[in-house]
Structures are given as structure tokens and as C-alpha cells.
């Protein structure tokens, strides 16, 4: 565990009581966000997102496979996150621990529950063949707020994704004998096409310390945070997901303020996303 000097914590507490943050930001201000897409040519879609110095790379890979028995007409999506030792002296190598697992699940839910991916459009033959979408998130540099950086990277990568008909053609053609409708599918979709997606919700994370709430915590702020709240909002300003973390608490007033800040910033981040993915 990183050793934070108590001096640092006292100083931060003091600063916020006087309305300031260490890096000069306002309480409801995000750090600079950079989005780059298509950097990994082997992936069906990819993106690199920087929020301040936090850096995340997300890659999308697709394959064909069998659907789940309880949803035979839907494609399957799976999200994994790696907090690789590259990104921080505190990340250990080995199977994912709770932080990585929670991160993957929160990002996954944000995309799944709001049906960003049109999974029902990823069916080739109900009950037999569907498309699998793998979302893999790699944290490259860690300076706080992994939830938002990872979610944004996953979304940007999805918007950059094309269904790999050309690459998968040999594999698909091998299925034609058993499943004749594959032939029709290939005739209808002879080339790679953009992955069908719906409007994504944008997630914004806030933390609380010393009775003050700040948005987009830096690493230092995360280290002294007593409570954390992530709110995902859609383009209508409606709430699509929420996740509270750490063992402190929020007042109802604080939660309302956080929601407002999340909606406002969500709007800005959404247009940035649309700009960089050409949507």
C-alpha cells in the first residue's frame, strides 16, 4: 500500500476547506481528457484514453460462438480489466484481485444494462451462432479515477469497432454446411461493418473527504477519500447506473449535487467522445 504522509492528508483537508484543490481545479471540474482511437490494428476496435495522467488502453476482439441457452438470439459480451504492474508500484502481477474485478464489472454493467451494444443484432443464427464481443481494458498509467477512464476507453473502443467479416469468413464458411443461414448472412453482410451501437451513458466519479465532495479524483485525492460515488448519465440527463464505494457515507444533498455535476460533465465528455470517434 502506498504510504501517504499524514501531512499530505492534513494539507488536502485544509485546502478543500478553503475551497481549493491541489491542482487548482474547481470541485466539479474534470482534468484534461484525451481520446485516441484505432491504435491497435489487430483489434476490431481500440482506444486510448487519458484523464490527466491516468492512461487506459481498451481493445475489442470479436469471435463467433454459441449463445447462452437463456438468450439464444443475442450476442455475448464479456469485459475484463487488468491492473497491470506497469501502471503503478502497487499493482501486483497475478490473477485479478478485487479492484480489477470490481472495475471490470462496473464497466461491464454500464455498457450492458444500458444496452450500448445491440446484442440482438449480433445473432447470425438463433441458438447456433452469434457474435462474441470481448472488451479488454488495460490500465497503463495510474493517477486516480480508473472507473471513468476505463469506461470511456471501452466506449471509445466500441465506437471504433467493425465486425470482422473478412477475418472470420473462413471460419464462418466452415459452418455453412451445418447451418445454411450463415450463407445468407454472409451474402447480406459481405464486408466488415460498424458494430451496431446505441447512445452510451457517460460515467462520472466523485469522492468525499473532510465533508467536501470533488469530481474526478486525482490519485492523492483517491488515497484520502472516505467515500466514492460513480454516476452514469445518458444524453437526456437521466441516470442509468450508480455505484458507491469505500466505507464512508454521503448525505442526500451531496448526492443531488453529485448527480448534477455528473450530468453537466457527462454532456461535455459525450461530445468529446462523439468528436473523436466521428459519430
Amino acid at each position, binding site marked *: 500500500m502506498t504510504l501517504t504522509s499524514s501531512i499530505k492528508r492534513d494539507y488536502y483537508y485544509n485546502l478543500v476547506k478553503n475551497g481549493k484543490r491541489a491542482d487548482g481545479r474547481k470541485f466539479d471540474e474534470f482534468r484534461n481528457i484525451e481520446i485516441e482511437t484505432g*491504435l*491497435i*490494428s*489487430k*483489434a476490431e476496435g*481500440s482506444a486510448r484514453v487519458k484523464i490527466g*495522467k491516468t*492512461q487506459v*488502453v481498451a*481493445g*475489442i*476482439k470479436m*469471435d463467433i460462438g454459441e449463445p447462452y441457452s437463456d438468450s439464444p438470439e443475442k450476442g455475448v459480451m464479456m469485459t*475484463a480489466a*487488468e491492473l*497491470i*504492474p*506497469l*501502471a*503503478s*508500484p502497487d499493482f501486483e*502481477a497475478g*490473477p*485479478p484481485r478485487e479492484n480489477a474485478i470490481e472495475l471490470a464489472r462496473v464497466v461491464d454493467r454500464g455498457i450492458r444494462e444500458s444496452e450500448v451494444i445491440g446484442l440482438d443484432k449480433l445473432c447470425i443464427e438463433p441458438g447456433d451462432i452469434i457474435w462474441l464481443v*470481448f472488451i*479488454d481494458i*488495460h490500465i*497503463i*498509467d*495510474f*493517477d486516480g479515477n480508473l472507473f471513468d477512464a476505463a469506461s470511456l476507453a471501452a466506449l471509445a473502443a466500441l465506437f471504433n469497432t467493425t465486425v470482422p467479416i473478412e*477475418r472470420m469468413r473462413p471460419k464462418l464458411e466452415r459452418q455453412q454446411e451445418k447451418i445454411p443461414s450463415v450463407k445468407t448472412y454472409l451474402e447480406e453482410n459481405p464486408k466488415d461493418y460498424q458494430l451496431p451501437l446505441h447512445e452510451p451513458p457517460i460515467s462520472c466519479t466523485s469522492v468525499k473527504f473532510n465533508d467536501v465532495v470533488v469530481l474526478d479524483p486525482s490519485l492523492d485525492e483517491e488515497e484520502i477519500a472516505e467515500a466514492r460515488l460513480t454516476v452514469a448519465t445518458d444524453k437526456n440527463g437521466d441516470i442509468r447506473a450508480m455505484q458507491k464505494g469505500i466505507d464512508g457515507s454521503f448525505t442526500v444533498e451531496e448526492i443531488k449535487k453529485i448527480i448534477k455535476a455528473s450530468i453537466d460533465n457527462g454532456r461535455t465528455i459525450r461530445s468529446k467522445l462523439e468528436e473523436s470517434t466521428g459519430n
Partner: protein
Amino acid sequence: MEQEIKLIDDDGKRLDGRKADELREIKIEAGVLHRAEGSCYLEWGNNKVVAAVYGPREAIPRHSQNPLKAIVRARYNMAAFSVEDRKRPGPDRRSREISKVISEALGKVIITEKFPRAAIEVNIEVLEAEAGTRCAGLTAAGVALADAGIPMKDIPVSCAAGKIGSKDDFGKKIGGNIVLDLGKQEDNFGDADLPIAISPRNGEILLLQMDGHLTVEEFEKALDLAIKGCHIISKLQKDSLLKKYHVDMEVD
């Protein structure tokens, strides 16, 4: 039967247009991460790797400590999306082996006696793979170590050579060409692959692996070619470091 692919034509041009002794395009950037003590981002053809160094710091667990010198732990890992068919996250046997040979190569050039009981951790992450990832990884690791201020006798550099095109159009075995820096098709359908790493100052071999089939003469030719490649790349490594520090520092 499968490969009708002619890896090299009669004019000596390879599939991607390179000559036998030509390297793919390499770009190196030092100091790209802010948390790591030293780091490097490297592109080599379509390979994209990031290397980060942490340490020296006390080796944990205690029983792994060497009272006389630092231990060097390299961890080579491929991202799930780095290859055409998604790779399951986590180290497989291949990654473990590559991690080991890279650790050993680095251990030779780092002046480990300066840091008894400590560990120097090198993390290599392959974001996109296209033949030669261990060479790219080790080369990036060398730059990251220098960037971290770890004392070294040399900056290690790695490159591969191999043999391709030893079948004529009728599938009969004939000559064959020794080429530098195998590309993906050449790696898959060629006859031999020889990745090496050297200490460029004195030419000492730090890493050497070979798979395929080579006569002694062919091996020597390939080795010589790979060493030449290493020297070219060594200059690129040093340039990337000087570029970064030149920008950072203007001293009185």
C-alpha cells in the same frame, strides 16, 4: 501445400518490400509514463510495446532477497487484444519463458552489486504483436532501465534474423535466404528464427534462442546479421534517451 506464398522473390524483395538485410520501421520514445521510475514506448513494424521499470526497492518476500546483489524480475505479458485471435489474459507458458530469458539477459548488464537485497522490476506489455515481440520488449526494457537511472554496464538491445524461402515453386528444397528481422509471414512459414540480444559495447550475447533448421554456416550468417541489426537499433535507443533528456534539461 498450404504455403504457395513466396516469401522472397528472385530480386531479393520480401513480402513487405524489404531487402534481406533491412529492418522494419522502429520508433522509440523514452519516459512516457509518470508513475514508473523509467519507461519506454516502442513501435517495431506493427509491434507496439510499453516497458516500465520500478525499483530498485527492497525485494519482497524477504526470502527472495540476495544479500549480495539486486534480483532482476522481468515480466512479459501480452494484452488480450494484441493478437488476431484474442488471447486469454494472464501469463501462459510462453510468456513465462520469455520473462525468464529476458530477466537473465538484463541481469547481466545491470550493475546489481550496487543494490543488495533489492529487486528491480521490469514490466513489458505487448499491446499489439506481429512477430518479434520479445526483441521489441527487451529493447524497450533497455531504454526504460536507462530512463530509470539504473546503473548498467550497457544498454541491452535485441533483434532477430532467420531463414526463409528455401522452397522453389514445386515445393522442392533449394537454397534459402538469411534475412534480418522476420515479419509475421516469415516467422510462420520460414525455416528458422534466431532472436538474440547483445551488449553492444563489447558484442557479448545476452540472449539466444533458435528454432528451425540451420546449417552451421547459415547460423553464423544469421548471427552476424542479427548483430548488425542490434547495432543499428542501439543507436535508436540512445537517440531516444538523449531526445527526452535534452528536452527536459538545459543546464548552466
